[in-house]
């Protein structure tokens, strides 16, 4: 099987993810999406940072904890990193679902590691010289207090998710006596740590004690309230997004009502008339498509692009095709390659093309017309083709002016050419070619003026 289809074995190249696709071993495992860095409560010993990292990096949680412990021994870097990650990592809101909980053994293990981390840090401080070790005790006390308060903030966040969205800072203290006790304990510990720090400080004797006290208090308050500041910022962001979403939803609802619902009502009325139903559905489809994907469409953010003043050729052709689709209940498929602004000549070209499409719709007897337009440096070419009955070009009666006047005349007057290919039973193809004004040397002078007029 594979031998007969060599073409399908070409390497996969996707526009966006060339790098991504190369690192996976060929066809072995499906790529697991990388989990965002989110702290989960169920794997928490202190704050869940190690658990979050292990899931994000796809490493066993024990290794993450050991790394933190070792880093803590190196001048307390591990403690600092842990604290920062705690601050800036969001809590996972899908928290309460069941999952792999930590077993008691892992829990004991990690508590031991936490103790070891602090021990290592203390040892580091002690070994690094007597002069630096004076702040050990106050720092440990202060950090303990901060950890207690932050942990309480996490709990408050979780309660909020559980109870529904209540916002504001007030409910933080509304969690019962245990919570209040823990918060107070944290505050006392932090303040105590700060006080001890000031009291024991050997180097700050010459600075006024009041100033130091004020500074220490300020730092303490800032550190303690970090979780609430962060939450405030996140909530503001969330609210802004919610407003945008609401506005968008209203816009969509209004549009659906104006167009789609009306069309559906019309379709129900005309249920017996198949042709009419097709016509309505086609028109609505085109309108919705323009709304969704068009130049000023919904998916483009609704911003009109720079060409709004001058109609582009592709738009003009799309409009012409749409008109004929609506009027004659045929499907007109159009493809435009390249694009340019329309001027007088190109407008004439589009009108001639429209006439050709109408002819096909009226006389070919088939319900599909293909339109192809190509914009080149020197000329624009349009092909209108159907696979219908065709006709004998020489035998067209004199009173049929469509082809002679509307198409031939219009094209000739503007310097264009018409070629007709048809025979009875062979379908019809009208080829229209119009030179582009801007590229004819003798008319270069008035080209800008013409472009201005058409707006």
């Amino acid at each position: 099987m594979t031998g007969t289809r060599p073409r399908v074995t070409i390497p996969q190249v996707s526009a966006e993810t060339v790098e991504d696709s190369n690192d996976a071993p060929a066809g072995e495992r499906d790529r697991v999406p990388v989990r965002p860095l989110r702290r989960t409560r169920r794997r928490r010993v202190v704050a869940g940072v190690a658990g979050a990292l292990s899931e994000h990096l796809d490493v066993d949680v024990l290794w993450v904890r050991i790394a933190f412990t070792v880093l803590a021994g190196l001048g307390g870097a591990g403690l600092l990193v842990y604290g920062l990650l705690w601050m800036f990592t969001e809590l996972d809101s899908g928290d309460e679902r069941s999952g792999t909980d930590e077993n008691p053994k892992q829990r004991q293990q990690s508590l031991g590691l936490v103790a070891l981390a602090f021990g290592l840090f203390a040892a580091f401080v002690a070994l690094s010289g007597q002069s630096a070790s004076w702040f050990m005790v106050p720092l440990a006390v202060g950090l303990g207090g901060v950890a207690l308060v932050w942990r309480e903030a996490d709990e408050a966040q979780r309660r909020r998710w559980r109870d529904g969205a209540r916002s504001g800072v007030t409910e933080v203290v509304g969690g019962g006596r245990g919570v209040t006790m823990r918060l107070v304990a944290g505050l006392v510990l932090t303040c105590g740590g700060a006080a001890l720090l000031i009291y024991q400080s050997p180097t700050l004797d010459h600075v006024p004690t009041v100033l130091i006290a004020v500074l220490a208090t300020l730092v303490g308050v800032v550190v303690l309230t970090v979780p609430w500041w962060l939450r405030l910022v996140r909530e503001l962001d969330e609210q802004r997004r919610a407003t945008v979403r609401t506005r968008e939803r209203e816009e969509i609802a209004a549009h659906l009502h104006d167009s789609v619902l009306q069309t559906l009502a019309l379709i129900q009325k005309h249920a017996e008339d198949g042709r009419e139903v097709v016509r309505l559905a086609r028109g609505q489809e085109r309108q919705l498509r323009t709304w969704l994907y068009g130049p000023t469409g919904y998916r483009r953010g609704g911003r009109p692009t720079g060409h709004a003043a001058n109609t582009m050729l592709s738009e003009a052709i799309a409009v012409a095709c749409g008109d004929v689709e609506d009027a004659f209940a045929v499907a007109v498929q159009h493809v435009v390659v390249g694009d340019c602004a329309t001027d007088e000549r190109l407008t004439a070209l589009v009108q001639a093309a429209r006439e050709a499409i109408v002819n096909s719709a009226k006389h070919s007897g088939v319900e599909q017309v293909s339109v192809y337009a190509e914009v080149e440096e020197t000329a624009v070419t349009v092909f209108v083709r159907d696979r219908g009955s065709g006709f004998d070009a020489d035998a067209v009666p004199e009173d049929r002016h469509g082809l002679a006047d509307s198409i031939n005349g219009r094209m000739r007057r503007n310097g264009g050419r018409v070629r007709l290919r048809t025979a009875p039973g062979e379908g019809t193809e009208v080829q229209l070619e119009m030179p582009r004004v801007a590229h004819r040397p003798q008319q270069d002078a008035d080209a800008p003026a013409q472009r201005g007029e058409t707006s």
Partner: protein
Amino acid sequence: MTSADNDDTGGTPRRPVRVFLVDDHALFRTGVRAELDSTTAGSTAQIVVVGEAGSIGEAVAGIARHQPDVVLLDVHMPDGGGAELLRRVRRAHPEVVFLALSVSDAAEDVIAVIRAGARGYVTKTISGQELAGAVLRVADGDPVFSPRLAGFVLDAFSDRKGATPVSDPELDLLTPRERDVLRLLARGYAYKEIASELFISVKTVETHVSSVLRKTQLSNRYELSRWATDRRLV
């Protein structure tokens, strides 16, 4: 069901083409299944729908289980769309051929799914008969270009002012003949009509289109992806 795969000698038209449908609209799947199952040559069915899926996850599992010849997949789906599915299953199943089906016709979607490895692209408004024809064609290893896709590719490879310089002429340029074929495709010509128009065989037309498909998938011309996102109109 899977044991039947082993005796496949490739290209024998007698064995029905096994198709797997991926689309998040159940109603649409039902419709396509009915249309494809009714495609017969004489008394034997040419196409059998072996399974369907409504999400990327189901599709990955279903394709692995059924080992279809052709996967018909929707460009737009909630969890990533056709391009995402292609990314996830193409390596594991290089022998499976993908044909993209879409209502959107937006250039970036179409180009993305082709670049991800689909061998063809058709719009959902295509008639049942045409769809069956397209399925049989991709099953034979030939690409299927709708007129619109041909237009997109022509546009993407065109040399406009400010276009990125060609770094690999082999991949970044279309030959004049390929251009001719694409133009006729965009004008709504069938392969047979193109062949007689250009005085070449249908097989040669298919070769040209295959070559264009390969270039569309492999060309690293920056223009190609940027063009698709820049393009304002469908």
